[in-house]
């Protein structure tokens, strides 16, 4: 089994390449930090395992996801490293390559996105590059599948056939070289560190690599630790950087070839003139989102979901009912399957069109390269609350699922900003909350569906930003946040990538339907069919009713006058989709239309909106609570998140209902 590690800068098309090479596809995005954890795949018909590491600018990590790469290299030795570079930005890409080449593990460098380079009017002599760098150099264009067959042939070799690389040796200044040599020699002699690795370790340590320094402290590597002050005082890290950069500049200068015909298509600049406009950039950002919701709710999603519901609640439901009656099923089993599972789980599944359209839109935004522009145009606003535009991306990803949003927050450099982003992420309205919005807007705001839903999304953002400012003041976070965002070339979204991205995000939803939504529905069915006296035929005497009745006084001030929504809210903590399926079960309806009519009867416009606001902001689902705990590393933050969101949601819903009732 050969292990190939994929390594490269962000925005080099690394993940696209990974997907093209391997059977299993990972999640692709044209935004830094999409690969928040490592992905592993297998090259088709071979014994080669490919590991996709997060994109990094250098082996000295600033963010949490970047340290995954350095830790990987410290602990493992892959048979081959495939260094993916962005051909048109080779200079800075090679800074990372040099660090990797110094390791002495076999490396293949591929100049990816080679088309972008040709368009700029020059090309590199691959032979020259290969000689200077001491490793094979290939060219690819993963998006058009160019050069992949050749590259694959290089990768599927047997371990024994891979030619070993000599570590790249740069001419560092005399003093630096001496320091490296001394440390490496004594590491090899006294600590039995393999010579090539010792050499690399010494360079990285001297270059102030935080992870390597931690590693040295942990393993008590005295030859390095004892010289730390000396290395830092001499500013060896600056000298190392300068040596590397001038080596790269020299190499590139000798390898550059001019192409005769140049057709410089400045499509990216043209688009950027509009979407990153200093004044219109922000309205365009809002407009794009409005379009997204229009597509999901008015134009494509809702009509499709209507057909699906008609099919499920009509033919399927009555057929199942007949079949079960004929087969002699007990009324209890029939009720569980027809009124519980088909109505409840099915009631959530009919929202697949809306959710998939929304996911497709988010994937297109990610794949095209717009996300980093969004970070840019929102930065000034985010600066006011003490975050930066980059924090907006995890929040937008959170529209899909709060868990992935929180994971994406790993790309934020400052720990306090990351914590704040994690804490405000649950206020982003995730796709699981969509079904319940859809039901309510269809019942009470039939004419302004997209607008009302959009207002909820924006309310979520506003609450999130407000809380961020609050935390920023409380935590006394440092003024300066790191905001450096690369604006990649735009790509025309490719259909299969969009489909893969949509499916990757959406399959979780379908999977949940079979697991936790199913479980929640069974739970609520049990609660609504059993009471203190056992099986009940009147739902008013069930546990669900009792529980709801007890809590009713608490919820009265926010406009809830029946017990059903309260019981539904309780089960919603399992997963937010369960709120909708619970409503189906509790109102004893088998189709959406009937439920919408029921909701229309027991809510007013204001109380419905107050409830939606409550649903938007109240306790995060189990998965999110768990992720907050694991990402912040403390159960306290998770508990805090539960309590604070409950308090905020109640207060806001209360205010909306009370003030709204006064005005009406």
């Amino acid at each position, binding site marked *: 089994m050969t292990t190939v590690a994929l390594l490269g800068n962000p925005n080099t098309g690394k993940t696209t390449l990974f997907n093209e090479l391997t059977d299993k596809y990972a999640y692709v995005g044209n935004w830094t930090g999409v690969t928040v*954890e*490592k*992905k*592993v795949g297998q090259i088709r018909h071979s014994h080669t395992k490919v*590991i996709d590491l997060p994109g990094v600018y250098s082996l000295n990590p600033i963010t949490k996801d970047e340290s*995954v790469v350095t*830790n*990987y290299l410290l*602990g*493992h030795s892959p048979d081959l490293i495939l260094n993916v570079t962005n051909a048109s930005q080779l200079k800075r890409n090679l800074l990372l390559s040099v660090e990797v080449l110094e390791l002495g593990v076999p490396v293949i460098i591929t100049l990816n996105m080679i088309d972008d380079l040709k368009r700029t009017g020059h090309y590199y002599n691959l032979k020259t590059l290969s000689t200077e760098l001491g490793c094979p150099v290939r060219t690819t264009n993963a998006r058009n599948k160019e050069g992949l067959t050749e590259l694959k042939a290089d990768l599927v070799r047997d371990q024994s056939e891979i030619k070993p690389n000599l570590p790249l040796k740069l001419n560092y200044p005399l003093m630096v070289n001496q320091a490296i040599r001394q440390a490496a020699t004594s590491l090899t002699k006294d600590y039995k560190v393999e010579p090539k690795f010792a050499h690399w370790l010494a360079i990285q340590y001297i270059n102030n690599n935080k992870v390597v320094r931690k590693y040295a402290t942990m393993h008590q590597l005295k030859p390095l630790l004892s010289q730390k002050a000396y290395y830092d005082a001499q500013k060896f890290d600056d000298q190392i950087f300068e040596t590397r950069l001038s080596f790269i500049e020299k190499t590139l200068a000798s390898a550059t070839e001019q192409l005769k015909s140049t057709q410089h298509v400045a499509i990216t600049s043209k688009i950027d003139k509009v979407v990153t406009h200093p004044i219109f950039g922000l309205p365009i950002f809002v407009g794009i989102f409005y379009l997204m919701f229009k597509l999901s709710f008015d134009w494509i999603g809702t009509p499709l979901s209507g057909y699906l519901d008609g099919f499920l609640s009509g033919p399927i439901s009555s057929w199942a009912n007949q079949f079960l009656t004929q*087969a*002699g*099923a*007990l009324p*209890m*089993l029939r009720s*569980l399957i027809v009124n519980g*599972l088909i109505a409840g789980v099915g009631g959530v599944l009919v929202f697949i069109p809306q959710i998939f359209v929304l996911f497709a839109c988010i994937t297109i935004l990610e794949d095209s390269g717009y996300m980093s522009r969004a970070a840019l145009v929102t930065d000034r606003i985010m600066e006011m609350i003490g975050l930066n535009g980059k924090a907006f991306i995890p929040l937008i990803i959170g529209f899909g699922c709060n*868990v992935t949003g*929180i*994971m994406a927050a790993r790309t934020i450099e400052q720990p306090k900003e990351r914590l704040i982003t994690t804490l405000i992420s649950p206020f982003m309205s995730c796709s699981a909350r969509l079904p319940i919005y859809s039901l309510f807007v269809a019942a009470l705001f039939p004419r302004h569906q997209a607008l009302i839903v959009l207002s909820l999304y924006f309310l979520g953002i506003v609450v999130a930003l407000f809380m961020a400012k609050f935390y920023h003041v409380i935590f006394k976070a440092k003024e300066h946040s790191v905001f450096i965002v690369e604006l990649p070339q735009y790509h025309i979204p490719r259909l299969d990538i969009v489909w893969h991205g949509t499916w990757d995000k959406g399959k979780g939803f379908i999977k949940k339907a079979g*697991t*936790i939504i*199913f*479980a*929640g*529905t*069974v*739970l609520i069915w*049990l609660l609504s069919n059993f009471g203190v006296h056992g099986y009940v035929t009147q739902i008013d005497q069930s546990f669900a009713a009792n529980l709801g009745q007890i809590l009713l006084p608490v919820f009265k001030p926010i406009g809830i006058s029946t017990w059903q929504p309260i019981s539904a809210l309780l089960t919603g903590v*399992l*997963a937010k989709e369960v709120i909708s399926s619970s409503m189906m079960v509790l109102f004893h309806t088998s189709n959406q239309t009937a439920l919408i009519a029921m909701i229309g009867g027991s809510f007013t416009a204001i109380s419905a909106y107050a409830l939606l606001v409550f649903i938007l902001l109240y306790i995060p689902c*189990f*998965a999110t*609570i*768990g*992720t907050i*705990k*694991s*990402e912040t590393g403390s159960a306290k933050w998770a508990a805090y998140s539960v309590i604070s969101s409950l308090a905020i949601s109640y207060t806001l819903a209360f205010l909306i209902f009370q003030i709204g009732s006064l005005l009406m």
Partner: protein
Amino acid sequence: MGLFVNILILAVIFGFAGYQIYRAVKRSKQGKCAACDYDCEAKKMLNQSKKRAM
């Protein structure tokens, strides 16, 4: 359909549901990494460091 089959189906449904709730609670305690089915290198490293800490 016999009473036994009825009860069996009910039991399967309830059992599966209970197991899913149990699993959700257990997984939420461990966070996202546990929810992913792939035993990747990062996860192995994480588990090892956990073992060492204990």
